[in-house]
């Protein structure tokens, strides 16, 4: 892979190592990265930690980029002079199936990693909607999918990490063993940091055995109150679902089981006896397409606005009611998916104009904050930023976050503005 490349080298649809290279601004014969002449934003795709360090320690604001699937998350970054792409650092460095650990570079795509793990009957039990995103990016965005209720999120699966900080320090925490309490956990610090603290250049992950099978049971015509009641019943039962998702306006409750062939079948059958409404057990193809469309709703399309809410566990009828009322009033369509067991809601707003989107964000955020939750924007229709903040109420710990940011990035060069208006 060549060192420097344009930002267009990241191709969200394709594999990074198959993408960029020749589109780059060129590199010297020995493969060392070369840069655009000063002025104007530049993009660089380093292939070594040292080159990456050199790239991030130059003057000006730095935007770190994986496959570019979350560049719109949080508030827009101001005046990035340098975009550093991790597309050139996408390798598996050390995979030890017998230890069930894998050491990867931060730029490896989740889907590429899963493919390699599957060859050894293993997987990372982690299913964010953006399967083409990089592992480093997924850690930095703190993303998680429906299976989080059973397996945790990436914060529970990362056992070691190496980071490059704004001053050029290369530091690691954790290690290669699945149980380890030596030193502070810098990987957790980076979870949700959205590129404002450091570049996660290497990670060590705990992998799990790939379940023999996965089954999905679906109940239709499940209203909000019923969805909450059924979720409590499912999570308190012995059948251990690995995902429970409720979608509105379809009013569908989908319940997933991973396990042995006989075991998952028995659990799915038990779930059917607990659920109400119109029931179906999806075959493999149907299940695949349901979860694909579920992911597509979470990712959404350019021009949509996407809100992510964190609340306490449950699917709150008042919040769901408020969303549909505000959406109706603004004349937009609001598509919701909720993980009731962990209290995560993702709302995709489509139709009408920026003003209408901003109204829904503002109003629904107030409803969510009134019950102690948070709403961030992952994507917005152009123009929405002028009318509503990407972040709402700041958490009480924001002062500590500011101090952390100040200690690691005193010049505020990494993704400046990402957490505006907080810091």
């Amino acid at each position, binding site marked *: 892979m060549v060192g420097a490349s344009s930002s267009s080298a990241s191709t969200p649809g394709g594999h990074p190592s198959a993408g960029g290279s020749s589109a780059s601004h060129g590199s010297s014969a020995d493969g060392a990265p070369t840069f655009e002449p000063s002025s104007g934003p530049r993009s660089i795709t380093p292939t070594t930690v040292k080159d990456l360090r050199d790239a991030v320690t130059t003057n000006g604001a730095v935007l770190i980029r994986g496959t570019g699937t979350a560049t719109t998350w949080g508030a827009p970054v101001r005046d990035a002079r340098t975009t550093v792409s991790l597309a050139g650092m996408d390798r598996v460095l050390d995979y*030890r199936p*017998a230890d069930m650990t894998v050491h990867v570079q931060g730029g490896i795509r989740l889907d590429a990693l899963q493919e390699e793990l599957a060859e050894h*009957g293993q997987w990372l039990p982690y299913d964010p909607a953006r399967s083409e995103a990089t592992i480093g990016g997924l850690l930095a965005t703190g993303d*998680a999918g429906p299976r*989080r209720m059973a397996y945790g999120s990436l*914060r*529970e699966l990362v056992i070691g990490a190496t*980071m490059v900080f704004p001053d050029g*320090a*290369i*530091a*690691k*925490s954790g*290690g290669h*063993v699945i*149980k*380890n*309490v*030596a*030193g*502070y*956990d*810098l990987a*957790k*610090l980076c979870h*949700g*940091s959205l590129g404002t603290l450091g570049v996660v250049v290497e990670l060590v992950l705990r992998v*799990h*055995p790939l379940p023999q099978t996965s089954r999905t049971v679906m109940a239709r015509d499940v209203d909000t109150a019923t969805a909450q009641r059924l979720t409590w019943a499912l*999570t*308190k*039962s*012995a059948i*251990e679902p690995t995902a429970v998702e409720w979608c509105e306006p379809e009013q569908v409750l989908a319940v997933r089981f991973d*396990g*042995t062939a*006989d*075991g*998952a079948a*028995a*659990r799915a059958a038990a779930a059917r006896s607990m659920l109400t409404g119109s029931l179906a057990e999806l075959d493999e193809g149907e299940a695949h397409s349901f979860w694909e469309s579920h992911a597509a709703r979470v990712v959404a399309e350019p021009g949509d606005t996407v809100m992510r809410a*964190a609340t*306490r*566990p*449950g699917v709150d009828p008042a919040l769901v009611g408020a969303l549909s009322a505000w959406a109706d009033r603004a004349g937009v369509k609001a598509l919701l998916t909720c993980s009731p067991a962990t*209290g995560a809601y993702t709302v995709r707003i489509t139709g009408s104009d920026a003003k209408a989107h901003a109204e829904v964000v503002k109003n629904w955020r107030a409803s969510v904050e009134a*019950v*102690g*939750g*948070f709403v961030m924007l992952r994507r917005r229709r152009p123009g929405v930023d002028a009318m509503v903040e990407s972040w709402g109420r700041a*958490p*009480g*710990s924001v*002062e*500590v*976050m500011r*101090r952390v940011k100040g*200690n*690691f990035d005193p010049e505020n060069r990494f993704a400046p503005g990402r*957490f505006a208006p907080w810091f």
Partner: protein
Amino acid sequence: MDAEAATDRRRKLDAVLADLRRECGPTLRVLSGEAERRAYETDALTAHRVLPGLVLLPADRSQVAPIVRACLRHGVPYVARGAGTGLSGGALPAESGVVIALAKLNRILDVDPDRMVAVVEPGATNLSISAAVAGFGLYYAPDPSSQVVCTIGGNVAENSGGAHCLKYGFTSHHVLAVETVLPDGSTVVLGSDDIEAPCYDAPGYDLRGVFVGAEGTCGVATRIAVRLLRKPEVVRTLVADFPDVPSACETVSAVIAAGIVPAAIEMMDNLAIRACEDAVHAGYDREAAASLIIELDGPGEECAELFEQVSALCSEHACTRLRIAADDAERAAIWAGRKAAFAAMGRLSPEFLLQDGVVPRTRLAEALAGIADLSSAAGLRVANVFHAGDGNLHPLVLYRESDGEGPAAEALAAAIAELCVALGGSLSGEHGIGVDKACSMPKMFSPADLTAMDRLRAAFDPSGLCNPNKVFPTPALCGEARGGAYQPHPLEETGKIQRW
């Protein structure tokens, strides 16, 4: 310490006390007599003792912040303490410092059985949480061996594990939010904002993830929201005896290779088996060279299927006796033996040092052989009882202080911990670094790593008064001689092990 410094420290402590008498009134219990303070001079790492200047027992949560503020105002170091069962000296007081003993803050404040969350005070014992929610069919998963007495506040500080964390994860995976008095005296909730309605997610940096496992250096927890799990439908437990240690290690690898994640896989060597059996009469075979305790849990059908496979794998690997717990009572007896291991060592030796290193599971046999070599070279016995599934060793270095074996035992214990690092592992799996292993940190982390961690610590505690001289190697703790750049391990020099 010279007289002037002593007077200065006394003056500061008096000032702290005067402030607190005014702010907290008579309900704040103060232990200032030497005999009373003596009880707090050490935790379970009894080799280290420092007499605190003052011990304060808050009567309620609201007294914690004034204590921290008074310490900050007068420049007095402090440490929070739960049950004092920590094994790395994490609760060791600073000289003339304050101990904030949280034993009275032991209430289970709220249980939400639907959301499967409990909010508790830091002095609540680990087991009291499970007891409080058992009626709902729920439990709190992390289960350190000391769970009957150790507190959740201490578990949060140390990111405690236990036998079942192989499947269920550590404290950090089960804590949703921590209400914390920060070293600047302010009170914030790390994790989500409302400790009474905790969310799984919170925006921004994962400060809860940093706090859990920071060994009490980032503040004092006053309320903790924990995640509860449903009790598994079925639990199956077996004890498998082996004619030698490598066969037991190979069995562990075979179980994992079969794609099975047991709830727990524990191993004991012969020395440990005999001590536990003599102490508890758990029905272990005193002649076995090594035994595995393997437990599976989960939905009935799946658990039965996998348990069959595990039993078969034991038999295929030269297992000499397979004992399957017939009922809960037998399972409890098996675990009672294992959990009594550390206490049982008193039968073998008047003193012992416990280590907590971790190696990649595939290097277990190598690590045990290395420990045997180091043990015979030092002329001291080492018993091994450990969490084999995740490679977390607990070698017990047996010695007799009265024979002057103390220094040799300490050197052997440090060499074992550092051997684990040299094998690609870690100094500590669950006990923490504390003062015990701080001087070994440079074997595992570079100066840049430690600087980054210290930068994070300073964001929480710029004053450096919150549990100082823990985790990080300092000249005061380690002298100039120890630490520094990488040096090869003794076994590396002889070519017996290799780093990777």
